[in-house]
């Protein structure tokens, strides 16, 4: 087995364990390359099917190509696609692009709060109707208690301390120092009522592995990752006011792999183009304690 086969096998194992152990399970799909690889791995795990809803938090500031790509794949792959949004904040213009908030508070409002309330069912959820090919209000208000997330240990400091199965209490608190032991592929699957679980099947993957796998499996990704001729591309995708392209002439997956291995990005962090990380003093710890993924 090569290293990609090993990573794939472990992720598939974790996904199947999660699915067999938890009800009300969802997968977060940010439309970025990592969670798209995660989605692909779910199709691997369940033999072409995705037996749980995919949740996307739409901040309304995502780059438009991202939403277009999301809906195209959702229809094509028959995904149970659900999105949530902080409509109040958007309506009242309480955002960073509106000049009302700093970047961190904006992330908290449009992402963390929206995510928490979408998961709990407190705010409306919109489900893709495959017949009408449009989003309709989802009748199901049951809280989602298990969330599959595509974080990688190599992304930044706090993520390297994650477990594959990570319990959070009702307030989403994460006690980094006192995490359950995880050994021999036995994960924490027993919980006091009220506990939520986050499942991290991509923990062992690196940015390079993600691209190698996208290349090997020929997984469709948003074209924003590639240079369209202007000499720049996105290395990490987010909201357009806070995510900046990097100078690069990588036009396809092979170019990106070469660039990551030997080029100028071989020792510059992937999230360097994400402005909110810098405002959080770096580690994203504040945001992540609040429930940021």
């Amino acid at each position: 087995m090569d290293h990609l086969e090993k990573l794939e096998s472990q992720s598939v194992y974790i996904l199947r364990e999660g699915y067999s152990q938890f009800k009300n399970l969802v997968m977060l799909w940010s439309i970025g390359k990592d969670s798209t690889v995660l989605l692909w791995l779910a199709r691997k795990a369940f033999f072409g099917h995705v037996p749980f809803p995919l949740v996307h938090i739409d901040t309304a500031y995502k780059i438009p190509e991202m939403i277009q790509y999301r809906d195209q794949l959702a229809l094509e792959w028959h995904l149970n696609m659900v999105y949530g949004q902080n409509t109040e904040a958007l309506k009242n213009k309480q955002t960073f692009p509106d000049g009302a908030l700093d970047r961190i508070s904006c992330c908290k409002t449009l992402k963390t709060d929206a995510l928490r309330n979408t998961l709990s069912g407190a705010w409306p959820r919109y489900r893709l109707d495959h017949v009408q090919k449009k989003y309709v209000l989802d009748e199901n208000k049951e809280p989602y208690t298990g969330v599959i997330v595509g974080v990688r240990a190599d992304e930044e400091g706090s993520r390297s301390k994650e477990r594959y199965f990570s319990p959070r209490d009702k307030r989403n608190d994460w006690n980094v120092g006192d995490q359950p032991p995880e050994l021999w592929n036995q994960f924490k699957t027993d919980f006091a009522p009220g506990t939520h679980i986050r499942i991290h099947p991509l923990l062992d993957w690196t940015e390079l592995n993600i691209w190698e796998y996208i290349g090997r499996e020929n997984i469709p990704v948003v074209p924003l990752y590639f240079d369209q001729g202007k000499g720049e591309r996105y290395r990490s995708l987010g909201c357009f006011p806070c995510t900046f392209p990097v100078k690069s002439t990588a036009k396809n997956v092979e170019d990106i792999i070469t660039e990551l291995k030997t080029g100028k990005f071989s020792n510059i962090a992937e999230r360097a183009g994400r402005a909110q990380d810098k405002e959080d003093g770096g580690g994203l710890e504040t945001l992540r304690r609040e429930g940021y993924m």
Partner: protein
Amino acid sequence: MKKDHTQAAKMNIVIVGHVDHGKSTVIGRLLADTHSLPQGKLEQVKNECARNSKPFEYAFLLDALKDEQSQGITIDTARSFFKSEKREYIIIDAPGHIEFLKNMISGAARAEAALLVIDAKEGVQENSKRHGYLLSMLGIRQVAVCINKMDLVQYSEKIFKEIEKEYRAFLKPIGLKPKAFIPIAAMLGENMVEASKNLSWYHGKTILEMLDSFEKAPSLDAKPFRMPVQAIYKFTEEGDDRRIVSGRVESGSIAVGDSVVFLPSHKRSEVKTIEEFHAPAKKRAAAGHSIGFTLKEQIYINRGDVMCKGDEEHPLVSSLFQAEIFWMGRDPMVMNKEYKLKIGTAAVPVQIHEIKRVFDVSQLKKSERKKQIDRHEVAQCILECARPIAFDLAGQIEATGRFVIVDQYDISGGGIISALVKDKEADLRDEVEAREMNWDFSIVDPKEREARYGHPPKFILLTGKVGVDKKNIAKEIEKTLFERGAKTYFLGMGNLLRGLDVDLEKHKSERHQQVRRMGEVAHLLLDAGLIILATGSNLNDEELKILQEVTDRSSILVVNVGENHFREGIVDLNLNAKDAASRNAKKVMEFLESEKIIGKV
């Protein structure tokens, strides 16, 4: 030209040892001397130290890298990355403090090899021993012991030899044989990447040479085939009729057409296809792959069963086994308390049957009197599961020979199985295995039979004391089921006693034999696809185990009338003995509907 490491397999190394024996310095020095640090980092930390007039330490590098990662470069103290000429390494820094033992275990359990650091001046300490013991239990065979801070003992060969002798003597009885003892002065970089001039009496490998000499775990393809079943998937509503038995192959390999057996149930079938999404069709699957199979016969199997090859050595099956356990729980592990055992994908209630020895790891004194296993202790004991499980001895196939123990909601212990202990049903199980191995299958597929009859086969067993009415409830259910079109039959115990059992003495000692025969009859009727009703007065746990062993455990439904004297978790439905038979029968019908055994009217 930079060497491309990415295709070479990365190796996970854990660094363990007593607190302050120099783990961080070893890591810092390895990062620095293999040029794996970000540019200018070393100078920056050195300058900072000079400015604050404190002596530079390589351990500071790790702290500095933590700051660095705030600025975006992703190195964590818990996991660092470096490269040698040969390959890439991930270094897992396991906490040396006893409070973080479960973190140490989580880290070390992922490693393929370990460096264990001992301070030459302090010698073998409590956690040097504890970590050594745990490495052995975690199955890490490639261990190098680094005797650090040799500069503080004037590079004395004598002191080095003494520590080596003492530590080897400690490790020997627990079966851990280090690949090497290496004298180092990590702080000064001696014997880390470069050989030390001050340690010229030492002719062995440096740390880096040692790491490069560690081997990737050998392939498990040659071992007997084992796949703990994770799930049986059927996505019918999406127009997919495949019934896929899925899991990860832990050892061995298998091909289309191979005969397979599932344990502990002994169900047999044959591999029809190997299933994978977005991959070329496969005829063979081997260790390490998460995969799926469709089978020729649609047999009843469950998550937790171990899929094996028919013609290979099978796992052991018993409800009793001997294990070495390490305990991490805040509360001790005690006798007469039910825990949950998780082995492979199976989960089953478990209790301590007998504590043979408790080792105080730090002292390694054996205590044979203890009646509990305290936090951070290691013990040898016999565990008893509520039902038989399939397993291997950890020395033979690791993945199916080790387990964790859940107390309440938390994984609180881990263990490896060292011996089989025969339980009471062992002989019976052998007979059943022989029966199943040679079973002559009906040409009618059980799933087709189920579809035609509109229900799966089921053995509804009404239990309770003598004198409590069970038979009328059973007959009432039979009637209702029959009227609703189910294939059903009341199996009268009296009919068996006066017929099939007539050769048996009407003696209490023959009761087990009567129960066994009842089970065999039920097994035939289940194979015929029926819902069987039967009663058992004063049936006890042991007799129920016989029935479960002889028939298919998952098709038995235990309905107890009146006082329940079974062990917890065995009874599926409890009925009030004071209620009328018709009312109780109705409750059972509702239960069958809620369990989706029969459809609602």
